[in-house]
């Protein structure tokens, strides 16, 4: 069995932090939209927006870390087509992790509700209030999110498949274990 090579600690921490925020923000978004107007709804919308902007920031850090650090090589057992598919999926995941919060931010501006990060830091409205555009952006935001959901299912499924079916120490790559070098 090959030795475990894992991602650097900052990469691992960022991966799980962002994963946690997405797993909180996604169902929160689904739940809040159909609520009747109430103070709770206003709170949940704010929390959702704060989560999204936090993801956007963390992903900016992640991308710069990823571009300046070499990830651990995939085990030899991973087929060529899987390597290509993995590169495409990872690229799309990064793209969506940027596009989704951005579309939400733009949607907020178009709907006339500025995003104020943690109720403290106002983000500039990049576009003016425009109801029709706001509705379109809401649709874009939804479509992007369900695309992300599909890709996350693929991403998690592939990791589990490599780990449990091919019996490669795959999950450790994003784990906390002792980092070993070949």
């Amino acid at each position, binding site marked *: 069995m090959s030795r475990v090579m894992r991602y650097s600690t900052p990469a691992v921490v960022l991966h799980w932090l962002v994963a946690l925020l997405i797993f909180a923000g996604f169902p929160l978004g689904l739940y809040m939209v159909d609520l009747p*107007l*109430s*103070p709770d709804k*206003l*709170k949940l*919308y*704010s929390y959702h927006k704060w989560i999204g902007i936090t993801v956007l920031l963390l992903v900016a850090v992640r991308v710069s870390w990823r571009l300046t650090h070499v990830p651990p090589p995939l085990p030899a057992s991973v087929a060529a087509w899987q390597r290509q598919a993995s590169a495409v999926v990872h690229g799309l995941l990064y793209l969506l992790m940027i596009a989704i919060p951005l579309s939400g931010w733009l949607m907020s501006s178009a*709907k*006339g*509700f*500025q*995003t*104020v990060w943690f*109720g*403290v830091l*106002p983000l500039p409205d990049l576009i003016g209030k425009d109801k029709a555009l706001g509705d379109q952006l809401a649709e874009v935001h939804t479509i992007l999110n369900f695309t992300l959901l599909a890709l996350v299912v693929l991403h998690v499924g592939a990791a589990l498949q490599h780990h449990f079916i091919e019996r490669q120490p795959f999950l450790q790559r994003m784990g906390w274990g002792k980092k070993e070098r070949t």
Partner: protein
Amino acid sequence: MNPHLILFTLTAALAMPAAYAVEYRTVVPQQSTIQFEFRQMGVPVKGGFKRFATQMRFDPAKPEAASAQVEIDLASIDAGSPEANDESASRLWFNRSVYPKATFVSSQVRALGNNRYEMRGSLTLKGRSREVVVPVTYLPGKNAATFDGSFVLKRLDFGIGEGMWADVATVANEVQIRFRIAATGS
């Protein structure tokens, strides 16, 4: 003293009262606005009322005789979103089926100098009346003069946003009101 200057001063002094002897009393609704701004979850939200009727009298030479009455049709609200417009009609907010209008009736106007005035009056919302003090700036204009004012009201003083909405951490108690009333002397 230069005779020309004396003549000029005299003419100006004579012309002045004539220029100021206008009593503004015809409001131009198209040029008049009532807007408000409040914070919800720290986010500034702007809104306003599209329909309101204003009666006023203002003579710059006799500001203490000035008066104003405003009646706002609460159904003409823009509270930031269609959802909020609907909600504002509910019993917890304006209870609009019982109290369809907001009214303001001035009681006293005091000149502060520099075209600035202090207007006191009674604001009635949802059946509750409170005295408000509103600073107003008078801007003489070619066709219409404008009267700009702004003040902060506390929505809970009027029971606007009761029950679950009374939580000021979500929707702030303070509501900034800004208005511009344009009026002509004819």
